[in-house]
């Protein structure tokens, strides 16, 4: 069964190339991708997930403000009745040279299921999504 996933670049970030690559990779992997493009607000992610009955939201951020932009997304999902939705984040999530381990811990604490550093092969997340959603 093909999984529906919502994809987008969060906040005021306009980096469109990675978004297109992920859209392509995920579609090739057999997912039904609802791509919101760039400059997507948390509310738009949540609304799209409800309307499309998505099982996962994949958030990208490249401009360093990812932490601020992503904070509260899990809470909004719970409020909207999407308690079981899987949340993924990837990219240059924070400014500066914070070790990725710390970034990952921070995002897991914020309610994300998986976090990816810059330069991750899309296949890694495809495999993870397939694994995570198989049980749902």
């Amino acid at each position, binding site marked *: 069964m093909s999984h529906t996933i919502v994809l987008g670049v969060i906040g*005021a970030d306009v980096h469109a190339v990675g978004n297109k690559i992920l859209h392509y990779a995920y579609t090739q992997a057999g997912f039904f991708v609802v791509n919101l493009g760039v400059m997507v607000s948390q509310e738009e992610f949540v609304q*799209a997930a409800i*309307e499309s*009955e998505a099982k996962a939201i994949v958030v990208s951020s490249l401009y360093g403000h990812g932490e601020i932009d992503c904070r509260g997304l899990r809470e909004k999902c719970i409020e909207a009745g999407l308690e079981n939705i899987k949340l993924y984040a990837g990219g240059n999530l924070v400014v500066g040279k914070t070790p990725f381990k710390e970034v990952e811990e921070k995002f897991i604490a914020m309610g994300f299921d998986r976090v990816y550093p810059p330069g991750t092969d899309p296949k890694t997340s495809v495999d993870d999504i397939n694994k995570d959603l198989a049980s749902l």
Partner: protein
Amino acid sequence: MKPILCIDFGSTYTKVVGIDVDEPRILGRTQSFTTVKEDINIGLEKAIEKLATMTGISEWPVRYACSSAAGGLKMIAIGLVPQLTMEAAKRAALSAGAKILKTYSYELNESELEEIAKLKPDILLFTGGIDGGNQKVVLHNAHQLTKLTIRCPLVYAGNKAIRDQVKTILSEHDWKVHVADNVMPVLNELKIDSARALIRDIFLEHIVVAKGLSKVQSTIDNILMPTPSAVLLAAELLAYGHIGGKGIGELLIVDVGGATTDVHSVAEGHPTQSNVLMKGLSDLKIKRTVEGDLGARYSLPSLVEVVGIEGIAATIPTSVEVVHQILKDLEAHPESFVSEPGLLKTLDDVAAEIAVKESVTRHAGTLEVHYTPFGTIYQQTGKDLSHVHHVIGTGGPLIYHHNIRSALRAAQYDPKNPFSLKPTAPHYYLDKQYILAAMGLLSIHYPKQALTLMKEAIIEV
């Protein structure tokens, strides 16, 4: 000479326009009270008699009609997320010429069901979920609707994956279900043509009969559509023209009435500046919005609330007490005109200006500024109308306005509100004879003549 009669059965007046399509010219225009309770033909005959006195013609072999009598085409729209499918459903219904009684989102509860039954819609538009998207809430709502104590034609235009299921559930409970394409098949993409066409068919087949308008079917060729649909047709023809004649280009029509203000735009609405990204639901090239709280008479109290009574008093200019008194008088006699001596502007004039300003502001798109590490980025929601060159006013409060240019200027871009994408330097026109609906009807068979007549009759002010 080939005379044609175009009839508009309004809620108050039955308006008739006689046209000679050979020349072409408008032979005359008259009106009489709509008589929907007794027999709608009585009012129509009276208007035709008046027209005969004016033109000497009493035989009209070809007649076209539109109607907003008996409350117009009353619809309820149901969607899932308010900003997504519910909004899409609302826009589909509006562009089909409907009057929206109320919209509902998420799971319908019992008290909402009671409310729907009380509102007695003519048609129910039921949507939810993109194609392949949400099923749970939509199916829940289908089951809820089976409990509704009323029945009316229902258009399902939601998630196609459960189309048959929804149809079965509802049909088993005596609903007459009409299936259209999903109004939002893909997220943020509007696709309303199928739903709109279906709504129009239902209007012709059921609603005209149900409202007692079918008595006229024997005397006229047909009630073809709801009046707002006719205006939209006229707007499209005037803007884009057709094979036999060029249109005037993108335009905006503001129709101020006693109870509501309608705004129609025929424009692409794409961004006109650089660094602008589009956000949210895509918009329709031919778009109609209706403001139920902005009207120059029956909706005056809510209109006054929009700017505050002090603001109104300052514009006239007069004291707050005088405005209070006028409002009180008008509530008792809504049919009367305001003629407070010694005032620069009448309350009617001010109300019309506010209706124009507010309704166009709500209709036009907006910009949001974002200061990003890459500089300033703008996000546009809705349509950019800044390059629209033609603003046309119609409706009683504008036709009888003492300074029509000043009233229509309220539709213009306001530097104090720079993020509202209203026309920056338009020309202003007045549909003084109130012929837009008639021209929309005429345009079905005589687009060339309708275009010529509109260009003549709609005057620049």
